[in-house]
C-alpha cells in the first residue's frame, strides 16, 4: 500500500473569502504576523498496489476530471514519504 496525496488549491487569481476570514480572525486569537491565508483541500489516497508511474498517471487524470475543477483550481500529486 502506498499513500498518494493530492492537494487542491484555488488558483492565485481567484478570491478566497474563506481564507480571508481565517486570516482576519488570527490577530484576535493572538496569532500575529500572518499576511495572507489561502484555504485548500487535501486528499489522501491509499493505493492498492505500488505508486508507480501508471498509478500516478491515473491519479492525475482523477484529479484533473474530478478532485479539482481546473477552471478555478490547481492541484499537485505526490507520493507521501515512507509509504
Amino acid at each position, binding site marked *: 500500500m502506498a499513500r498518494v496525496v493530492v492537494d487542491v488549491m484555488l488558483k492565485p487569481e481567484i478570491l478566497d473569502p474563506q481564507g480571508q476570514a481565517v486570516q482576519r480572525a488570527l490577530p484576535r486569537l493572538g496569532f500575529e504576523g500572518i499576511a495572507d491565508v489561502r484555504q485548500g483541500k487535501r486528499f489522501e489516497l491509499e493505493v492498492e498496489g505500488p505508486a508507480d508511474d501508471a498509478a500516478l498517471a491515473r491519479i492525475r487524470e482523477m484529479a484533473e476530471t*474530478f478532485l479539482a*475543477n481546473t477552471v478555478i483550481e490547481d492541484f499537485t500529486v505526490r507520493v507521501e514519504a515512507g509509504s
Partner: protein
Amino acid sequence: MTARIGVVTFPGTLDDRDTQRAVRVAGAEAVPLWHRDKDLKQVDAVVLPGGFSYGDYLRAGAISRFSPVMESVIAQAKDGMPVLGICNGFQVLTETHLLPGAMLRNESLHFVCREQKLRVENAATAWTTDYAAGQEISVPLKNIDGRYVADARTLDMLEAEGRVAFRYLAEGEAAEGYGNPNGSLRDIAGITNEAGNVVGLMPHPEHAVEPLIGTGRTDGLGFFTSILKKLVNA
C-alpha cells in the same frame, strides 16, 4: 399536444416539486427524472432544479455531474435539447462544462435568501423568448455558492457574444432586492451556451409563477412559457 419537460431529482435536490409545478402552471407536462436512470423518457427539454445534490460534497454539482442521468442530458444537450439549470442545476452545468466558468462560495460567506432584481440581457435563448431584452424582473434567490467566476478572456467572450443572459441589478437598496448578492464577476446571474439551448442561472424563477405565493409576482413564469412555445411550435 403539449411539450414534455423533464425535471431531474438528485439525492439532495430541493426544488424539483416546485419546478414540476411551474412546468404545469405554464401548460406543459412535467416528467420526473431520477438521477440513477439514464432514460430521459423522451422528454423535449430538461430542467436541473435547485438544492444541495449529493450534499454539495467536493464542490457544488461536482458529483451530480457524473450521475447516469447526466450522461444522457449532456449528450442530448450537445445535440440541441433545451436544458435549464437553476441554482444547484447551474452549478451542475458549469461542472459539466456545458457552460463555462465555475461557482464559488459567496463573497460574504453568508447564505443569502431574498427577493432579487435581475435584468434579462438575452431574450433569444430557448428559455427567455417571452421576455424583452433589457426587461427587469424580480424572483427569489437563495444560495451560498453563488459567486460566478471565469477568467477575463471567458468573461469578455461571453459579453461579446451576448451570452450573459441575466445580470443582477447592482445599483440600489438591498432591502428592495437590488445589489450583487454574492460577488459574481460583472454582476452575472446567468449565462447561455453558444447555441442558446443550455441556460443556467442562480436565482429561482420556478418560485415566482403564481400570484398567490411569495411576493405575488409571476416574473419567473416566462422561462416556462418560453420553452413551451418553442417546443410546441417546433
